[in-house]
């Protein structure tokens, strides 16, 4: 009887890894079928690796919304210094440069996460045409491979430009001449840079140059972590996550600025797109996106976003 009970125990345990494995294969197949069915190159991002399939099994969007509600809870004043102080210590938040230096002035973790900078605590370099749009760590930068339009998220791990920007964005922001929309134009190159914002960084972002905005595109998607270790192990990661892309033109041609959400940081707010809502309930249709043409009333007559113009911020949830 002991033999049969240990056998029963093993068979019970055995069922769990088998179920997970089958679910993983199901996810892999789902992405292949959806990509093939839609028939649109941009919908089927890079091959889905095991790590990615495993992550995709997690309900990251509802978890992110739940996390946001928790982080939004109003903290009793006596608990703010110990709790927010601990968060600041663990994630190296710099409160000296924030508009409120005392933990008691922050009602919740979210309030601390979306803290504003103190006036004058940053200057926008005049000598360089392109400046950093946010605080963070430079994950990667360089030229976009012209032949296969692949962008490196980190050395050697790619995602596809068309999968990232979505269909027709280049055309909609280049001059009406269809030939013109083939980028890069003669004599130019396409460049990219990825800046990762850690939990302790200030989560507001600003215009990195003087440019005219045409389109704000919201592509709902997953909310997987974009931490450096994930960018190394999950190809196509940036083309999977929920993101908001501003596209337009700067002095050298096409220019796009993308705020990419992540696990627990599913909220992206744009100053010139007040009704934008990300990580909404009710899921999203795979491969869907929403475009909004930026009009004068949001950005002003010239549609110019000058260097340092406040474009928006991330939030938890």
């Amino acid at each position, binding site marked *: 009887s002991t033999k049969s009970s240990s056998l029963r125990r093993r068979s019970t345990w055995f069922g769990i890894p088998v179920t997970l494995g089958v679910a993983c294969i199901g996810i892999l197949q789902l992405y292949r079928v959806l990509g093939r069915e839609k028939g649109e190159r941009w919908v089927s991002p890079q091959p889905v690796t095991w790590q990615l399939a495993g992550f995709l099994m997690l309900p990251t969007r509802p978890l992110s919304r739940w996390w946001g509600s928790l982080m939004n809870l109003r903290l009793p004043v006596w608990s703010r210094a110990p709790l927010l102080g601990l968060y600041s210590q663990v994630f190296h938040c710099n409160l000296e440069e924030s508009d409120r230096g005392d933990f008691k002035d922050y009602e919740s973790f979210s309030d601390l996460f979306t803290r504003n*900078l103190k006036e004058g605590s*940053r200057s*926008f*370099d005049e*000598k*360089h*045409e*392109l*400046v*950093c*749009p*946010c*605080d*963070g*760590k*430079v*994950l990667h*930068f360089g030229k*976009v491979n012209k032949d296969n339009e692949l*962008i490196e998220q980190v*050395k050697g791990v790619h995602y596809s430009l068309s999968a*990232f*920007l979505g269909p027709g964005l280049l055309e909609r922001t280049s001059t009406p001449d269809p030939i013109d929309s083939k*980028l890069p*134009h003669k*004599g*130019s*190159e*396409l*460049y*990219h*840079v*990825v*800046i*990762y*914002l850690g939990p302790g960084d*200030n*989560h507001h*972002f*600003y215009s*990195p140059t003087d440019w005219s905005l045409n389109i704000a595109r919201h592509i709902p998607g997953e909310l997987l972590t*974009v931490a450096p270790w994930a960018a190394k192990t999950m190809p196509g990661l*940036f083309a999977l996550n929920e*993101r908001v892309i501003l596209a337009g033109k*700067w*002095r*050298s*041609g*096409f*220019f*796009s*600025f*993308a*705020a*990419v*959400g*992540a696990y627990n*940081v599913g909220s*992206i707010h744009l100053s010139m797109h007040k009704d934008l809502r990300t990580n909404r309930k009710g899921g999203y249709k795979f491969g869907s996106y929403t475009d909004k043409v930026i009009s004068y009333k949001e950005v002003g007559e010239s549609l110019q976003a000058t260097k340092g113009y406040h474009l928006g911020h*991330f939030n938890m949830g």
Partner: protein
Amino acid sequence: SSIVLVFEGPKDFKFAVQRGESVKIGAPLGRI
């Protein structure tokens, strides 16, 4: 979360940062 810039630039565009470098808002990122 991350910010990704994809843009057209001249062949001699130069980045002013290193991979893995911590950056602050407004610091030099590249020059034409």
